[in-house]
């Protein structure tokens, strides 16, 4: 770990001022300190947000919930309203990491979790995300955990988290405080970026901008599922994950909202899939079409080729379950 100046702002605007170039905010620290020890992250200043009033889960005027940025993953998953009205979110959080890590990790921090790409993690290997212009070690290298959707010649990393996949299915929004003192809201579906030729930017946050909360829309009825496929039964990142919210109207699918993890540089949401399913009678043929849409343009990199059939099959399992079909 490089030496850094440890700062503890006494207010949100103060935090914004401290978050100048070369500074990093820290909340739970579970990802940042991991990366700082490896010197993947080398901040000059560490701005500890933990004293800021960014906790609490409150009801919104619109009938949804607002989760403070500093609410721990554990507290979020344990909240009775979330368990009752947003089970996909509770399930996604509980599918990630461990109790210890979830006790530390925060809502805001988790959204900013960085990729687990092997080459990003190894400072002796090329990585355009870590060191723009150095190349991508994963292309032509080992890429079992890498992206099959939305990747670029510069980067094939995935966003590794679970929580944000559920938030994308729920169409939640991220609230931020910008350096200028204003707040801004960004849909979770647009918060993370595709790598393009600037993979060093994981998301749309600007310098000095701090996540202050996440807003969930009013609860929707229907079945909420989070399905995570991984290499061991717990404490492993997703190979493929799917958050699904499916409401049936009689025999037909009334509405569907699906988001996918482990496939891309961001939680993957394709509105065409939701639109395709809405109003249709559930059938394997329909689910196959949904998979076709999802995997249109999917590209394997060698060791992750299997994610293409795996995503298709996992989607079939999720849609059958969500629409009441037999396994």
């Amino acid at each position, binding site marked *: 770990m490089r030496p850094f100046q440890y700062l503890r702002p006494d207010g949100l605007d103060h935090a914004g001022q401290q978050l100048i170039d070369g500074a990093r905010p820290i909340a739970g620290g579970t990802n940042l300190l991991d990366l700082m020890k490896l010197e993947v992250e080398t901040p000059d200043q560490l701005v500890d947000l933990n004293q800021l009033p960014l906790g609490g889960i409150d009801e919104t005027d619109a009938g949804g919930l607002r989760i403070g940025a500093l609410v721990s993953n554990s507290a979020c998953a344990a909240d009775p309203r979330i368990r009752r009205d947003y089970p996909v979110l509770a399930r996604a959080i509980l599918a990630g990491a461990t109790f210890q890590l979830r006790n530390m990790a925060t809502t805001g921090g988790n959204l900013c979790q960085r990729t687990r790409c092997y080459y990003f993690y*190894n400072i002796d290997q090329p990585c355009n995300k870590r060191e723009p212009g150095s190349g991508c*070690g994963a292309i032509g290298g*080992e890429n079992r955990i890498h992206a099959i959707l939305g990747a670029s010649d510069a980067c094939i990393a995935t966003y590794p988290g679970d929580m944000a996949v559920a938030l994308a299915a729920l169409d939640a929004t991220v609230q931020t405080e910008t350096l200028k003192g204003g707040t801004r809201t960004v849909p979770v579906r647009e918060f993370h970026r595709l790598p393009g030729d600037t993979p060093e930017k994981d998301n749309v946050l600007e310098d000095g901008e701090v996540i202050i909360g996440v807003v969930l829309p009013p609860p929707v009825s229907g079945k909420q599922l989070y399905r995570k496929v991984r290499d*061991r*039964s717990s404490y492993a990142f997703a190979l493929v994950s799917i958050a699904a919210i499916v409401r049936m109207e009689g025999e037909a699918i009334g509405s569907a909202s699906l988001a996918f993890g482990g496939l891309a540089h961001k939680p993957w949401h394709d509105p065409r899939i939701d639109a395709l399913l809405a109003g249709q009678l559930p059938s394997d043929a329909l689910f196959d079409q949904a998979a076709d849409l999802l995997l249109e343009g999917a590209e394997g990199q060698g060791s992750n080729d299997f994610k293409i059939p795996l995503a298709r099959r996992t989607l079939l399992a999720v849609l059958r379950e969500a629409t009441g079909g037999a396994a």
Partner: protein
Amino acid sequence: MTRSLIMDKPDDRNRLDAMAQGVIGQPLDRPDGPAKVTGVAPYAAEYSIANRAEGVLVTATISAGEVTDIDEQSVLSMPGVIAVISDQRMTARAAQGGAGKAPVQQVRHVQYYGQPIAVVIAETFEQARDAAKHLKVSYRAGDAITDHHDPDIPTDPYQDPIDQGDLAHAMKQAAHAVDVTYTTECHNSAPMEPHASIAEWDGKTLTLHSSLQMLAFNRKELADSLNLELEQVRLVSPYVGGGFGSKLGISPEGVAASVAAMQLNRPVRVVMLRQQVFQCVMRRSETVQRLRLAADAEGRLIGFGHEARVSNLPEEKFGEPVTQASEFLYPGENRRLAIEIARINLVTAGSVRAPGEAVGMQALEAAMDELANAIGIDPVELRLRNIPERHPSEDIPYSSRKLIECLKIGAERFGWDGADRRPRKRREGEWWIGTGMANACRVHNINEAQARVSLLADGTAVVASDMTDIGTGTYAVLGQIAGEMLGLDSTDVLVQLGDTTFPPGSGSGGSWGAASTGSAVFEACEAIREHLAEQLGTTEAELTLKDGFAIAGNRRVALPDLLNGSAIERNGHFKPGDITKAYAAAMYGAFFAEVAVNAYTGETRMRRFSGAFGLGRVLNRKTATSQCMGGMVWGIGSALTEELTFDARDGHIVNPDLAEYHIPVNLDVPHLDVVLVEERDPAASPLQAKGVGELGICGAAGAICNAIYHACGVRVRSFPMTPDKLLAELPVP
């Protein structure tokens, strides 16, 4: 005084059963347990030593070549940095188990990516780690072979192959034949305690607190590395946070800490970063294994072939002994067993828990399942029909072998139904359910060992040896052996281990620890018994020791009275002799597994897992059971999750951490049902005990492979059996 035994023939006296105390075999708690659960047991890095400096290793970022320059100035001005050391005495690799001399040193001559090349010493750990990352190193890269999956890498024979009869002909003649190739990937031992050392140098003597398995050997390795006399080196390892082979030999951080302490004249601690444990200790070699099994109409093997390709660095003598158990487990007069070794530039291949059988047995037992399916018989029955009378190549007898009992008892406990082995017969929701079984087999090893037993004037005893307890239960079992022999409650026996000031034990490895060092303790106790018998005016055979009393005929004297104020101290010295050549001695068992395979995703979950094992005399039922369970967990890892992945372009490990190298977690492991089959093996040791620590892994993954096939009909011949490997052949539900 020392009593020695060179074991040339079986010890049928069965002395331990003739004793009266009744502690041997009992499932006693470990005496070291309370210190472990309260956190006061000191591990290598935990000695508080004044003025201690901290070191962090620097490792190579090329696959092969020369270090042309290490720019010390690039870090010496950083706060707290004391020195950069890249000394010719430092070691580039860990020593192989039992080497007893320095491993490859030349740290500036790079032969694998991740090789230690220097150590940075600073006042604090954070300063040292940061400086290690900043150190500027220049290289001249050389040619390297880094793709271990490349089938075209030239190989050399490893050991002389066994060729008997005509296997190719037998395959043609066979009523049923299987000719299949299985592969396994590289593994890492990944003990929970990273390799750690603190070195202290007083100008004459070096003391190294280190996490090591075989101190008597490690002492020689360290002395040789540093050009010191043996007497100048003391190693201290009373608690070892797991080893599994990775701490058999002196490891680079221990030598680096020593060199630094001697150069700086202050204590130095070097602890490997977790990534370095992966990068520069030991890997288990990957294997490619061709199995040819030729059976007659009844399923009796007439031909048996097991050929493997493994790899290692140039100059390393070790080759994964894949066919070790295959040499004697099954019959077949037409045989070919051979191992070829490819020389590659990847981290040293060495012993990882149950070298040979861990991967050899899982492939063999999966192939046997394929044979059973080809014949259409119960795989348990196939095993029962293939138990040779004598060693098929060496024509020597087997020592005690409880394979039949293990198969029958294990099958019964599990509720094995071998009648219909057709796959895809049982489905629960999304999950295909299946069962599978496998034989367990692991050679029995014994090593030279010494121990000292003191019967103190107060009637309590002290056992001392530089033997280690790496989680194996050595503290418990040595105390029970001495307690049984001397008629003491085991709480009246203090066991002191892990210090080279004590007599040299066998060290922990190859499952030989308890049988070897235990036999040395046994010998010392026999000598004490002889002395006590003499004091009491009787013979050793007539002497009964129980509850602190010496009893002969109608005389019953408390030990303190008999000792009359003076202690008795005896050394025991045990040496394997002709016995190792006279018998094929091994541990046997049987695994039974039930798995669920997700029909959509190919994920496998263990539902039930049983093992029945014959290990000779069980010295402590509790710790022996735990060892077997541990092996089975390794079997689950080997079957389903563990794979050290290398980038073929430069040979660097892409998953050198516990996030991406997946050792099983608690949820991966079902309740483990272990049964220890009663056995005494007089040819194994004077204790009639064999090895315990490795058998539980040897074949375990084969049972899981067979269960997966039975569940879903996919025969995966590539371990680990991750979801991607099942998907290709798994029908969409």
